[in-house]
């Protein structure tokens, strides 16, 4: 994979676009995650109500891939039911780990699939999702694939 494939237009668009960046004042959940092997850290703000993920915002330090991944994740999860959100996260994690996954469940996040060949950078992409999983995915869902 060359640089342009890794830093695709899709990723650079979401990195530069600055959507979903920032704290949500009315968030119901705040959760932190970090990737100690590279130093990246992220804080997610989630507004959850009536079984639905209403809004997601994020703050933190990270490379273009992790920032884009956070923005895309927020975009995809917003408006989803808790169950749909969990299924999306579980499938994204499977995709990044090179396991079989349900492509219909993850939408545009499929653009990150190539990273499964790059374990160092896959860690960057997965950080926001792993962090969201702390709130949205139960142990049971992790096992069954939601």
């Amino acid at each position, binding site marked *: 994979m*060359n*640089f342009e494939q*890794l*830093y695709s237009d899709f990723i650079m668009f979401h990195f530069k676009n600055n959507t979903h960046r920032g704290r949500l004042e009315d968030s119901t959940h705040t959760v932190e995650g970090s990737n*100690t*092997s*590279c*130093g*990246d*850290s992220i804080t997610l703000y989630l507004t959850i109500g009536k079984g639905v993920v209403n809004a997601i915002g994020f703050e933190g*330090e*990270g*490379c*273009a*891939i992790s920032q884009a991944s956070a923005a895309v994740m927020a975009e995809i999860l917003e408006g989803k039911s808790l169950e749909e959100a969990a299924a999306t996260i579980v499938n994204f994690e499977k995709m990044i780990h090179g396991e079989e996954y349900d492509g219909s469940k993850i939408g545009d996040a499929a653009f990150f699939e190539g990273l499964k060949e790059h374990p160092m*950078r896959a860690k*960057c992409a997965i950080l926001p999702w792993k962090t969201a999983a702390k709130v949205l995915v139960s142990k049971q869902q992790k096992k069954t694939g939601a």
Partner: protein
Amino acid sequence: MSLKETSAISIKEVRNDFPVFRHYPSLVYLDNAATSQKPQSVIDAVSGFYERENANVHRAVYPLAEKSTDLYESSRSEVARFIGAERNELVFTKGSTESLNIVANALATSGRYKTFVVPTFEHHSNFLPWQYHSLKNGIKFVALPIMGAELTVTEVTESLKEVEAPFVFSIGGLINSTGYRTPFEDITELVHSFGGLTVIDGAQLVPHESFDFKKVNSDFLVFSGHKMLAETGIGCLVGRAELLDDLTPFVFGGGMVDRVSVEASSYAKEGTSRLEGGTQNISGVVSLASACRYLNKIGISAIHEHVSNLTETAREMLKEIADVTVYSPPDSHAILLFSHKRIHSHDLAEFLGRTQEVAIRSGHHCAQLQMKALGITSACRASFYLYNTVEDVKRLIEGITKAERWFL
């Protein structure tokens, strides 16, 4: 901008000695602090060993085994000479990390020391073993705080006044994240005057600077082969003989025992045997002696001058990029830690590596606490060695400029 041309070594000949540059003629390898490339002579020493001299050492009497034992022991003498120690003061290990664990474990369980002291700018390998073994053995652990990236003898003096003796002070000679050259000679003297022992982590220093164990008068020294042109999986623990011969073994097994009995066994008296349990990395040892010969041939002080010129050139050029911050102290050697205000260190390293063939490292450089002291979580590091050129430096700088265009 003044580009000091470096003439200390004949760079063309040196590069010819390293096959990696034949395979990747336009590779700019600036990750030398992580591991060095290897000259043909070292690679050949390893193949030659396996083709003509391979046998297990020490315990056999046929000629092939005698040859390998001779080679193993004469390599010990050569490597010891390289850092100014006696052959009975040098133990072969897997690397600096294992060396530091051996000495931390032994000093912690000896019951003789009250405190372990380590500055917070150290590589994790010179921090975690001291932290773990002190906590485990009820020894006080002092992580010396640092301002920025440097530590003065005055600061150390102040801190040591509070430290309960006898203590052990372990300090890097050249700090791997920033290239800061510590005043370890003065600190050694100081520590001794306070009744402490010193351990010098020479992982970055020994590849770059001629080191005289006797003259420095440190108690222990560790270093790694792979950062100084030798194989991976080989390193050294050097200790004053009377201290070394007193260390508790770390690895128990063949070759380090005296008499085995069901109730309790006794171990070899010399540290060099007692601390080398199990089959050692024999080809690694051979490669390390070969690497020392190569470094001597080029000349450590010539390498130092060459690398120093490159570091200064790179420092000046980096400073001219408005958005770049250099974290290394002004006189850091061989290593420059920097970041770009608007391009994350991983993105910059990835861009340089994949589009410019410029290999630098990004991340925390196994020095989370040093990053914290600098107020960052990650940064880029360029590190130089004998085969790097001014052209390499220019390619780094151009690469950063191109990255700015791409990312911003």
